[in-house]
């Protein structure tokens, strides 16, 4: 069992924090932005300076799953490019947490320019009939409205993961569209492969990496939601 999953189990939690989820992915070889969990606004500023501006500041607590909807939007602050902005955002989170009686830290994370790449969803889950499964699709409207997703039983090797991506109707958008650079499909396939392995090897009910930012240089997991199986 991974440390992150063991910690969550020890706490009686079924959901990993984003930081735990990202460490789990990073341990499996998936690129994630630099981040640090901080217990105070001062620590958050220090972390931001170490990571380099701009940064994103998010609430980090097992009690908060939907960060962007939490506390009227206080849970996620993006594009913070100064120590003062980081201190403000972190303070808002600590205050909102205190008001709600939630034990929270803040996650300070290197900001990624999402316009510089394509947002892709990679998910894994344990199906009652098929066991571990991975799926992928382009982010936002392509998956939610057009349901253009591609599935595989896990585990998958790199070739199968690549085939899953390439059979998407929207795969052409990854090949470079209206002058954009083609994305590194092999790096993306590596994420699909890693997510498949994680769901296969651990007692994970569901693993959502939404989004993965795919660029010409690689694929970075910008968020991670990990839900563990009951009991186990």
């Amino acid at each position, binding site marked *: 069992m991974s440390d992150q999953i063991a910690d969550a189990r020890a706490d009686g939690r079924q959901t990993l924090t984003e930081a735990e989820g990202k460490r789990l992915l990073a341990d499996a070889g998936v690129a994630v932005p630099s981040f640090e969990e901080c217990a105070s606004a001062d620590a958050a500023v220090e972390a931001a300076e170490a990571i380099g501006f701009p940064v994103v500041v998010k609430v980090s607590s097992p009690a908060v799953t939907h960060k962007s909807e939490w506390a009227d939007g206080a849970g996620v602050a993006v594009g913070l490019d100064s120590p003062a902005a980081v201190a403000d955002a972190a303070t808002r989170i600590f205050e909102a947490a205190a008001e709600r009686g939630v034990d929270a830290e803040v996650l300070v994370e290197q900001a990624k320019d999402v316009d510089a790449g394509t947002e892709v*969803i990679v*998910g*894994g*889950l344990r*199906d*009652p*009939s*098929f*066991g571990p*499964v991975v*799926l992928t*699709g382009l982010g936002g409207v392509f*998956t*939610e409205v057009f*349901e253009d*997703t*591609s*599935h*595989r*039983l896990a585990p998958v090797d790199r*070739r*199968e993961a690549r*085939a*899953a991506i390439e059979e998407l109707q929207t795969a052409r958008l990854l090949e470079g569209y209206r002058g954009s650079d083609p994305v590194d499909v092999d790096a993306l396939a590596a994420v699909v492969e890693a997510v498949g392995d994680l769901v296969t090897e651990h007692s994970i*009910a*569901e693993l*959502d990496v939404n989004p993965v930012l795919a660029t010409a240089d690689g694929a970075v997991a910008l968020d991670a*939601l990990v839900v563990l199986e009951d009991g186990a």
Partner: protein
Amino acid sequence: MFDPTAVAVVGASQTEGKVGYEAMVNAAAFDGPAYPVNPSGSGTMFGEPFVDSVADVDDAVDLALLCLPGPAVPEVLDECGAAGVGAAVIYASGFAEAGEEGEQLQATVVERANEHEIALLGPNTSGFVVPETSLLCSFASGVDEIPTGNTAVVAQSGGVALVLAFQTRRQGRGVSATVGLGNRANVGFVEAIEYFDGHEGTDAIVLHVEGTDDGRALLETCRNVDTPVVAYKVGQSDVGEFAASHTGALTGDHALYEAGFAQYGVPTVDATDHLLDAAAALGDSPTPDGPNVGVVTAQAGPGIIITDRIQRAGGVLPELTAETRDRVGEILPGITYADNPVDTGRPMPAFGEVVTAVAEDDNVDIVLVYELFEQALGFPVEELDGLAERVDKPVLFATEGIEADLAEDRAALEEAGVPVFETPERAAQAAAVLARYARFHAAGVDAEVSADV
């Protein structure tokens, strides 16, 4: 189950219209003995006297057909166990498909069967038919007319098993067996596929799937068998439990089946006739090496339909080699269109030579021939006979015309092992299934299997 020496019909009845009557009438056609069992029966049926229990049959019965209401089944299974019967068919419904009480009854039945090592088909099924031995373990009328073929039908629904079998009769093909799994008490897809993979008379297995609680085992079995498997997964509009979870809301159960079958080397189709066409193409042909289809047509219009369909369904129409184009040009100077598809413009005496030239083309993995029947010329039976084996590629044939006029030539083609289709679309779908099958298997499905070993 599928190859018994003696059959007992438990609950056999002399009252026409009862399941016990229909099942006994059908069972009596069996090449081996079929015994009526019913404590309230008297006299004989088909020359065999009624006995009270399977144990009273003076023969080694190895298959029992249970024409009984559900609640009577457990006790009869005990009797079967004591008499050494190894297999039973349960026709009755009212088991797992019918709520909690039924589920409990099914659990009891499975427990007893496992205890006695009895393989159970059903409950809630129409049974199975093996035409070759006239083993008609079904209460449906007309099953005695189903011809012997080389496709094994494994259907989740007993009704669909019959739909497919009767269709193969109309198509002039037949089945090696048709099996309705029903509730899959302890014989399910895995057991049936494994059995027919080892069955000598079976060259292709078709699956009708509504949904199973161990999809992965089904797929792994399909990958591990040598016999080609084609599947028809019903329920595209269904949304399974999978869809309840967050990521799962993006998809349905159906997408997983489709993706899983492809990943495990099983082409899927979405109609009963396409399923049987695919089986005919795969079962009667050498395994194609790739997805490249060479089309020869005597009429442009059907050729265009075929080309369109093949390309949409995963096949490829490659360019022919310069050598083949020259060869076709020599056979038919001024030919309408000498690339792929080759369009000869009309049936002609040299049509068979053109087909041979395309079949021998190195760029072609699969051959599809279309021509309207022309009374004066007939089909190029002589050229097509043995062509597939010689070039080691599937050669499919599709035609249209007056049935009676072309019957003799068609029979000759079928006799020669050439799969024949009735519409351009169905032939094209079948060719595309061959193309997908070749792609899946060239892509390393088999390699993975051998790597596992």
